[in-house]
């Protein structure tokens, strides 16, 4: 099976710094592969281990995506090779531009049987790009995939909805957005980490892979701010533990929450 797995390198939301006036800075953040993308990579690698074939990893983004540590990280998880489209203008690309660019890059790479995406990115979690990508490539696309079973010319997938699981036949080629239940990604081994440095990497610029429809954005971000601080009473209940808990219970009763 010829598989492409798309992933996004994102700044770690835990490293968010809130500046005065509620603006957000991620300057000091460590950039990592999205946790849901790791599951998509694992799903691709498991499929190829089962039925043979190859897995390429693909990502589009700013220069951080091409950092040596990032390239080594993704390649140490099993893909055979890596394709990147790098430009700092992509740092805040909207989902539609991202999907268009991924589609163009996938077409440039060549034929494929399956494209796998994570449910959503670690930073924004919009859960849209995989779906848009399938539609733009003109192939069957489905989300919430929790199991993939290869068959002849197609895959049988389990789709995990809120209250039920659908078992669906998906003809290939297709795009699947996998859900967090699909697998537990393996930890890279020393061997895989060492091999990673030797695997082929193809790095393109936007000039190499001009996205169909150009670089237009379809939405404008007006602001990104830390959530408003909720005003809290900040009452410290005094006294020894027995007294304090009695007072507390009194307060909570009055609040109507006990």
């Amino acid at each position, binding site marked *: 099976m010829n598989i492409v797995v798309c992933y996004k390198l994102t700044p770690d939301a835990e490293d968010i710094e809130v500046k005065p006036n509620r603006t957000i800075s991620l300057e000091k953040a460590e950039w990592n592969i999205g946790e849901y993308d790791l599951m998509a990579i694992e799903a691709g690698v498991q499929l190829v281990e089962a039925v043979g074939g190859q897995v390429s990893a693909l990502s589009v983004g700013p220069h951080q995506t091409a950092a040596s540590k990032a390239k080594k990280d993704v390649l140490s998880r099993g893909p055979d090779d890596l394709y990147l489209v790098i430009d700092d203008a992509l740092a805040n690309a909207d989902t539609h531009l991202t999907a268009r660019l991924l589609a163009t890059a996938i077409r440039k790479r060549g034929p494929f049987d399956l494209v796998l995406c994570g449910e959503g990115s670690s930073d924004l979690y919009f859960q849209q790009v995989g779906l848009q990508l399938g539609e733009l490539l003109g192939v069957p696309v489905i989300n919430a995939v929790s199991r993939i079973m290869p068959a002849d010319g197609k895959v049988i997938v389990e789709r995990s909805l809120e209250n039920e699981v659908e078992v669906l036949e998906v003809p290939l080629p297709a795009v699947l957005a996998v859900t967090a239940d699909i697998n537990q990604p393996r*930890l890279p081994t020393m*061997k895989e*980490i060492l091999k990673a440095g030797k695997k082929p990497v193809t790095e393109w610029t936007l000039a190499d892979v001009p996205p169909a429809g150009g670089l237009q954005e379809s939405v404008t971000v007006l602001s990104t701010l830390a959530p408003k601080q909720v005003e809290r009473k900040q009452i410290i209940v005094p006294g020894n533990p027995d007294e304090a808990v009695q007072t507390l219970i009194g307060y909570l009763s009055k609040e109507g929450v006990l």
Partner: protein
Amino acid sequence: MDEKFDAIIVGAGLAGSAAAYRLAQAGLEVVLVERGPYPGSKSLSGGVLYGRVLSELIPNFWDEAPVERFINNQVITFMTGEASFSVDFKTQAFSAPPYNGFSVLRARFDRWLGEKAEEAGAMLVPGIRVDHLLREDGRIVGIVAGDEEMRADVVIAADGANAFLAQEAGLRERIPPAHIAVGVKELIGLPRETVEERFRLTGNEGTAYAIVGFATRGVSGGGFLYTNLESVSVGVVMHLDDLIRHNLKPGDILEDFLAHPLIAPLIRGGRLLEYGAHLVPEAGLQGMPRLVTDGFLVVGDAAGLTVNNGLVVRGMDLAIGSGIAAAEAVLAAKEKGDFSAQGLSVYPQKLEASFVMQDMRTYANAPHFMENPRLYAAYPQLATTLMAQLFAQTSQPKAHILPTLLKAVKESKISLLDLALDGWKGVRTL
């Protein structure tokens, strides 16, 4: 894994990365295994980086490495609960290359050094914890991590203060609490202008404080404070056995230290950026393990290479020095094709010939001296009481310095003999 490497270095701290850099430079196939996601992610320092040995490995490293401030102001402070007495030394002689020491943030600095090693050709393997040494016919031939084995002509253990691999290799016993210290530290963010105003700094110069007495509430050890570009590193380091004996918690001691009237204004309005704790070898020469066995070397904190002479605290430069010496020993052994303890004996020889072991020997008695409980209560009290008496202008008539001093000593209940002996021992040990 079928390949055999020239060397496997366990731990991409300063000793490990320095060794990896030196070996990769010489064209050897060296694997640098680090358990954290990147070199430096597990490092924490309570010291200043004295840079001379690193500048021999990477000339003018300060131009490219993420150092914070060059230190040209060293302050030694005796502290009591309400007072402090400091010797404050500042010189422009330390303000130009090759400088003297630097404050560093280890997560950034170690990462840079690890990247240098990678650029030189070392193969960095992050996110992997080495569980065991791999042995064949009793000889160490590599390492084991999870289900995987990796082989090399030599394993260099740069795995830090716990020295697990050195223990497994039979070079040392478990480290007793008496030989180890625990350090707790906060990184407090302050705007650059605030740092420069509060510490009277211009440009990139910086200050290092070594504080003894109240900082550790009588537990043997000390407090430190270093200025970084836009933050201050502040903390306390205490001998573990003494800490246990006093029945005190490091976090509580740190809290009190930060609230002390000398320290509090220096960090006022700052933002807590990081909080961490780390072990430090504290036994000096007598706590060092054997350094070599067949196919195996120990470097850095794992080799107990730290010095605390009361004025300065050193570990980083010793780590780097030992990493370089280890690398040169491996190169020499490769030439002879002999990786036995004998073949690797160039390592202890180089250490002995260098400042590393010479300084370890010079300061061999410092740890014992630094355990003197008078250092932590009686002397700070004496110094501050004396100063208070010299400066106070009450309705009582004043006396000259000498009688004031003698009176203060008498009231402190420190015997003149102890005072004299401590002073004599101090200037000869530290």
